[in-house]
């Protein structure tokens, strides 16, 4: 079979297309040559087509169990069900990079198709910048990480199996969503660079860039939420965020991306912060690239990093230097010449959004500092130290609390100038209600007023109620309230949904962080423990055979009010191909609480170490994430973006 060779070959062809895409339309745009600029679209399509073929070739090799391919042999096995063989395509470093370039090519294609109405020189430049970024990644794959390498002459008869942690639904969908987000910021980046190159950095630019940025942000949000959900049920610790470098690598672009969305709104509506918005667009994508470096170079230790390789690290670092260094240099040269002429007061929607930006960027800087601080200290020869969850929580939580306060004020404020008296007039009632409801909710839930829980719940109410006040303002002067509701734009409802998501997330974080309970104990068949109204009875273990593993399955009966409430079956699995032992937790999900049971080690006399956890409101974390995702998508689908593009077409 020559399928892997075909894959490698088409990838080289895709690189050729990327080189042409990066140069021809770019030169055309600078010379005003319409014919050359017109090449951008077909070249984008060609690049996508050949990348897709390459990706399908690798998928085929996996489905076909072609263990002569090194990457397939290391990440698959004949006993693996077909869907895991397919998701194993992105189970390792090489294949996940191929997925990355496929998504990059897909975004490029989407821009080429969807932006028919943009001025020709802008679209030519945007696609060319995407081409430049693509070149870097194609070269990276072809030179350092080809997934198509073969074992020659002999090859193994059986594959080494996919890492059992990755044999899971969460891991089928998590990386593609995350990469959609990371790579999506490449579009915002390309728009920013194109604007800097053309020197036309205006409200129109912000309008074009906004929907793309919102979609990318929505995918990143979803990707992070899925990752957290996966870690929660699959790692067996019941944790949902570990402040691991890999997680931080996804959080940093998210924080800056969130700032970017808000800053773009100001630039579009009011024409201010132009150079700041461009800078954020560059940062968002730069941080995505930086995350790639941190995860794949081995400079930081992480629970779930890829196999590290300094040579690959050096390659990515050079790529970072070219892409980020180059764009920041361009920024430095061009941004110094920009002036925005708008004005706004100390208290205005602009300034409040700017404060939001400052808080988000400072939080991101804090996460970055904490993530690479061990590296800095080590590089300076000052010893080894660790920066972990206690540090991040201590700084991140207060920063976010301040941000929530401004969030409420921001939504009701007005452009240009918002009198203090108006803010007070509008917000005293929501503020008071938030205080009362937050305190009451905390008291009713816990029977005490734990500081952070109280703050969290009050702020969540504050965000919701201030948003409600804003909606009331919008409807106040309309006679038909329902028609008024329908009149609001999708963009507005997107914002409402996303902010609601934040409030839901905050409630989840506050309650699950403080009121989670956990018991580790030794249980013999017949033993029971009563825990938050639930009685867990351990009834012994059963031996279970899976397709590619064997398992000890614990049988735990959960009683509520004297009746059987649930049967929970936590497992301890042995994956035979690699000899990996895995904890498979049993979870009874619920809207207001999860029951979480995991098996530890077998002890003497048929007893097992068992961990029982009660996780209040843990589902709200991901519910909040989903709301934010839908908010982002809804905002991006606002028809006015398409309409404006139609206008732009008319002028070009």
């Amino acid at each position, binding site marked *: 079979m020559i399928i892997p060779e075909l894959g490698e070959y088409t990838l080289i062809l895709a690189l050729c297309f990327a080189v042409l895409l990066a140069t021809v339309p770019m030169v055309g745009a600078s010379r005003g040559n319409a014919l050359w600029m017109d090449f951008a679209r077909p070249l984008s399509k060609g690049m996508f087509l050949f990348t897709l073929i390459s990706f399908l070739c690798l998928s085929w090799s996996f489905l076909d169990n072609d263990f002569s391919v090194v990457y397939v042999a290391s990440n698959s096995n004949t006993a693996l069900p077909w869907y895991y063989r397919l998701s194993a395509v992105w189970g390792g470093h090489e294949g996940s990079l191929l997925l990355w370039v496929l998504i990059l090519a897909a975004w490029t294609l989407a821009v080429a198709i969807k932006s028919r109405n943009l001025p020709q020189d802008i679209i030519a430049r945007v696609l060319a910048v995407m081409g430049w970024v693509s070149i870097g990644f194609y070269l990276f794959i072809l030179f350092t990480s080809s997934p198509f390498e073969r074992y020659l002459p002999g090859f193994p008869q059986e594959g080494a199996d996919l890492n059992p942690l990755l044999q899971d639904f969460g891991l089928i969908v998590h990386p593609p969503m995350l990469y959609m987000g990371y790579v999506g910021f490449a579009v915002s980046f390309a728009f920013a660079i194109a604007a800097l190159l053309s020197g036309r950095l205006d409200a129109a630019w912000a309008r074009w860039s906004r929907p793309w940025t919102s979609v990318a942000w929505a995918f990143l949000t979803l990707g992070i939420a899925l990752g957290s959900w996966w870690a929660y049920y699959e790692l067996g610790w019941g944790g949902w965020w570990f402040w691991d470098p890999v997680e931080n690598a996804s959080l940093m672009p998210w924080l800056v991306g969130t700032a970017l969305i808000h800053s773009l709104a100001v630039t579009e509506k009011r024409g201010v912060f132009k*150079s700041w918005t461009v*800078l954020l667009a*560059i*940062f968002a994508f*730069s941080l995505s690239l930086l995350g790639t*470096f941190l995860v794949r*170079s*081995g*400079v*930081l*230790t992480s629970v779930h990093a890829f196999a590290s390789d*300094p040579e690959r*690290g*050096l390659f990515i*670092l050079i790529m*970072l*230097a070219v892409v*980020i*260094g180059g764009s*920041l*240099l361009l*920024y*430095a*040269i061009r*941004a*110094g010449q920009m002036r925005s002429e708008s004005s706004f007061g100390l208290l205005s929607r602009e300034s409040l959004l700017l404060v939001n930006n400052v808080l988000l960027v400072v939080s991101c800087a804090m996460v970055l500092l904490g993530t*690479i601080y*061990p*590296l*800095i200290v*080590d*590089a300076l020869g000052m*010893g*080894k130290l660790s920066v972990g969850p206690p540090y991040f929580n201590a700084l991140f939580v207060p920063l976010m609390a301040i941000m929530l306060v401004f969030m409420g004020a921001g939504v009701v404020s007005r452009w240009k100038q918002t009198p203090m008296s108006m803010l007070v007039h509008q917000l005293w009632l929501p503020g008071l209600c938030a205080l009362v409801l937050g305190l009451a909710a905390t008291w009713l839930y816990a029977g005490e007023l734990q500081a952070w829980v109280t703050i969290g719940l009050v702020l969540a109410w504050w965000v919701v109620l201030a948003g409600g006040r804003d909606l009331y303002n919008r409807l106040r002067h309309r006679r038909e309230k329902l028609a008024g509701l329908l009149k609001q734009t999708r963009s507005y409802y997107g914002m409402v949904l996303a902010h609601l998501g934040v409030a839901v997330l905050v409630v989840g974080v506050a309650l699950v962080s403080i009121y989670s309970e956990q018991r580790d104990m030794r249980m013999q068949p017949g033993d029971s423990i009563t825990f938050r109204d639930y009685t867990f009875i351990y009834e012994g273990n059963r031996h279970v055979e899976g397709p590619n593993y064997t398992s000890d399955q614990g049988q735990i009966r959960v009683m509520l009010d004297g009746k059987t409430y649930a049967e929970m079956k936590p497992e301890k699995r042995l994956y035979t191909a690699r000899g990996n032992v895995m904890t498979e937790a049993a979870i009874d999900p619920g809207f207001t609480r999860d029951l979480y049971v995991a098996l530890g080690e077998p002890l003497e006399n048929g007893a097992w170490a068992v961990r029982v956890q009660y996780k209040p409101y843990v589902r709200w974390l991901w519910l909040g994430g989903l709301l934010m995702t839908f908010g982002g998508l809804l905002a991006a689908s606002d028809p006015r973006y398409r309409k404006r593009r139609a206008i732009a077409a008319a002028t070009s």
Partner: protein
Amino acid sequence: MNNRKLLAFIPLALFLLLGLFLWRGLSIDPTELPSELADKKRPIPAFELPSLTEPSRLLTPDDLKGEVALLNVWATWCPTCKEEHGFLNRLAQDENVTIYGINYKDEPGKAREWLRRYLNPYQKVVLDQDGSLGLDMGVYGAPETYVLDPEGRVRYRHVGAVDAEVWKTLKQVMAQVEQESRS
């Protein structure tokens, strides 16, 4: 206006600084830990443990004093220890290096069998069956090799197998310690 132009270069400057650290980071192994004992030239923590080879005899830190020596932490369950064992034998025989051993969290029977089969490069072997000495020393992965000065203080630690390359460093450290203790 000029100030504004300069301000626009700040992001680039910050990025270059970051890039410099990342580049340095590529040549640093983040998993390797410095030894607190070696950093502060502390003596081997107090212990009173039986000898592996003469179970009736109790060893204390005093037994490891007197000359510049290597102290090797090993166990039969550790594959890398097997890898380096031949080299340690060569050091003891050809280079006349004094090597002490700590048998770390191991089964004494297996360990004695191992020394019979693969020869014994150690002058004395401390039997640290429950790993308490290892814990006090900050051992985090066998094999580890320490350089001791004549007063029994730790001067250097290497984590991982000792081979010709590592021995160059160890030899240098030992020569330096030797010189210091003479002067």
